[in-house]
């Protein structure tokens, strides 16, 4: 790459209406350096990144490119100057193919026509670099979240960014996929690209960043070389209290009777022959690579997908053909896709919170007072940080959306709850709160299934872990056997012989 550029925020403030979310932020991205921006949910990380890349304007302060103040009128203008943002939410056109998305607005032409062959080849090359196996012709709506993330990254690579800003790029990736991304980050760094990223996984931050800026409530509270921080110090700076013991210790034993028995569950095309038993008060982890059918199996179980199999709840056979039936039987599923399937982004928090448990709030008419009280309770219980009570849910920060989603499911008071990726995009302080909450549920006699791509999370949280591979349960680990190594080997279909997990 011929040119390198540095991007600076100088005393930037930003308000939404009367609420100020950024206060005098200053930071510099230097060529060939990886800068990490960390902070709690709602601290203002995404907002700062959007200001740097022309999606938002600062209310005060300046953005400087190579020491010269710039005003990006739009994100296209920023991209033209080499500043590219990969959004926290996917920014892809669902109906278009992978290739069309990568070159959207930058199509390569030859004379009057599109140079289809060149773009195909280039797409293949970019995806191969990312170790991503999707076809350039696949429609984006048909590919997995992890692949979508890779397509976003490929898109940014194709723009030849000199300043690359990534908002939680690894949130939807497993460790292996994240590894591939980090290789590319190293490569770009060597080419002199200035990189900014954010992540709630502090081990990643420690590993790949050179410099750290910590935000709390829109203020920069710490800034320095990564070498000067250990993970606990980062967490402490973000949250303002000690969070070194992340996983609570089990206080109450697991019950003996089976809360949920699943025998021979088939979800055509995704999972087959799934059998397991969940005991009362148990926390069961489900691990596996992305695409192993974890989510689909759970959706089949809760009536969200066509499925066959024997399911018993508290020993009684039940037929769960729709989510309504599952909910009536005391079984709820919390989706991993909070924006597409979890929350109505155009509605307020109150309507979202009570949507699933609406009958509880309805006696001919909806009781608005009770709803308001429930919202007040949820905000307190789950520490939801919203600029105002009336904010549209789409304007909440990602992590706070997740908290609202958990609050929404819990309002239905399920006996058995399946949580898919409980802490995706959630900051470490809140993670700790959610883990404590899951333990409290279990102590109250509820049974919980936690599906998670974060190995540490299932191990730290679960009493027992089922590992899925290619649509079936490849094995089960519990007790001292619950190690990353064992889980990875099961997930990848490796035998007892020890191999280096890639």
């Amino acid at each position, binding site marked *: 790459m011929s040119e390198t550029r540095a991007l600076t925020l100088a005393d930037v403030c930003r308000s939404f209406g*009367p609420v100020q979310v950024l206060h005098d932020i200053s930071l510099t991205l230097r060529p060939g350096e990886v800068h990490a921006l960390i902070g709690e949910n709602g601290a203002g990380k995404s907002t700062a990144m959007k200001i740097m890349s022309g999606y938002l304007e600062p209310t005060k302060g300046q953005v400087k490119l190579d020491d010269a103040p710039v005003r990006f009128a739009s994100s296209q203008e920023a991209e033209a100057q080499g500043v590219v943002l990969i959004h926290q939410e996917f920014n892809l056109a669902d109906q278009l193919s992978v290739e069309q998305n990568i070159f959207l607005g930058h199509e390569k032409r030859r004379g009057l026509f599109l140079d289809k062959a060149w773009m195909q080849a280039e797409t293949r090359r970019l995806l191969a670099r990312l170790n991503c196996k999707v076809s350039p012709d696949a429609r984006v709506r048909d590919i997995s979240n992890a692949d979508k993330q890779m397509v976003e990254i490929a898109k940014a690579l194709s723009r030849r960014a000199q300043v690359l800003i990534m908002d939680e790029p690894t949130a939807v990736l497993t460790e292996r996929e994240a590894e591939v991304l980090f290789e590319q980050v190293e490569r770009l760094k060597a080419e002199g690209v200035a990189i900014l990223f954010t992540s709630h996984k502090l081990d990643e931050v420690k590993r790949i960043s050179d410099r750290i800026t910590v935000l709390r409530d*829109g203020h920069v509270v710490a800034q320095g070389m990564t070498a000067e921080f250990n993970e606990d110090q980062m967490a402490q700076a973000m949250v303002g209290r000690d969070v070194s013991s992340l996983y609570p210790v089990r206080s109450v034993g697991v019950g003996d009777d089976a809360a949920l028995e699943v025998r021979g569950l088939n979800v055509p095309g995704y999972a087959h022959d799934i059998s397991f038993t969940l005991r009362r008060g148990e926390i069961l982890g489900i691990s596996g690579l992305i695409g192993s059918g974890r989510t689909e199996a759970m959706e089949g179980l809760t009536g969200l997908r066509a499925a066959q199999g024997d399911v018993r709840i508290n020993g009684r056979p039940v037929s769960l053909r729709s989510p309504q039936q599952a909910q009536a039987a005391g079984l709820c599923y919390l*989706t991993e896709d909070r924006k597409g399937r979890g929350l109505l982004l155009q509605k307020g928090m109150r*309507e979202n919170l009570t949507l699933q448990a609406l009958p509880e709030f309805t006696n001919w008419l909806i009781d*608005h007072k009770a709803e308001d009280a429930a919202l007040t309770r949820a*905000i307190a219980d789950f520490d939801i*940080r919203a600029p*105002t009570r009336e904010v549209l849910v789409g304007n909440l920060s990602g992590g706070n959306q997740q908290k609202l989603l958990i609050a929404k499911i819990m309002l239905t008071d399920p006996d058995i709850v399946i949580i898919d990726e409980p802490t995706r995009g959630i900051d470490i302080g809140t993670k700790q709160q959610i883990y404590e909450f899951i333990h409290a549920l279990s102590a109250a006699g509820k049974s919980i299934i936690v599906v998670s791509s974060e190995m540490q999370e299932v191990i730290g949280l679960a009493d027992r872990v089922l590992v899925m591979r290619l649509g079936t349960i490849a094995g089960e680990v519990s007790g001292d056997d619950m190690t990353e190594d064992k889980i990875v080997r099961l997930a990848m279909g490796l035998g007892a012989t020890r191999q280096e997990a890639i």
Partner: protein
Amino acid sequence: MTATETRPSRPARGVNLKVLGPILALVVLVIVGAALNGNFLSAANITNVLSRSAFIGIIAVGMTFVITGGGLDLSVGSMAAFIAGLMILVMNAMLPVMGPGWPLVFVGMLTAMVAGTLAGFVNGFLITTMRIEAFIVTLGTMGIYRSLVTWLADGGTLSLDFGMRSVIRPIYFDGILGISWPIIVFALVAISGELVMRRAAFGRHAAAVGSNDQVARYSSVNVNRVRMLTYVFLGILVGVATIMYVPRLGSASPSTGVLWELEAIAAVIIGGTMLKGGFGRVWGTVIGVLILSLIDNILNLTDGVSPYLNGAIQGVIIILAVILQRDKKAES
């Protein structure tokens, strides 16, 4: 930063204009009407305007739910004509048996309600269970009902037997305390509609389904049932509107109810309901209906502008309403 206390946080301009826009337009129209013609505010004229808006109004309230739920129904005008024809045929057929009187009127009413329910059910079934686009389904049924009523009338007019006309007339022309029945029924339908939209689980569910049906499904909302019910309610309300309509002229013809669907949809949109679904406002629809009828009425009462321009003015208003709706999006 746990700023949970309620603050006056609304960007005052956009939101207020959206809420107040239709009301302001209505007020302006009333002032203009009163200035142009002394009779405009007379009791007779007001009753006339309101009674005539009642048909479209009752249908538009149902349409508000359909559109809020992410759907559309183009068939309501033809459906009304078909139901009117059917109602007249049934009453004429039963007249020799039952004689003219209220029992026969009730038979007619029942016919209209049942036919409306079934017609709504058919639309809903094809759209939800058979998964066909609402636009296509209702375009189809629109043609079907229109052709059926033409066939029933053999291209001419279906007239209610003279013996029955005087019995049934009061439904349109009488009322309580000087307020005619269509106005009363419209008011009742509008008030219950507003209540259901705002305060009942069904209204909330319809908005959720229209906003994102996946989220609704994952939240244990029976998406198909909610969608189906919006069409069935609309069908029932078309039946109710027809019951009000038949007594007025005592006849139905292939030109009955022509363009009612567009007027109803226009009223819904002018009232601030989002055409792509997810948000609906019944009181807005009522104002939308009144705006449309007032324009018609003012043009008829005044000499300055030809009543033939009615359609053009309505068109301008609809487009303006949509532009106003959009401003919030443009900000963010």
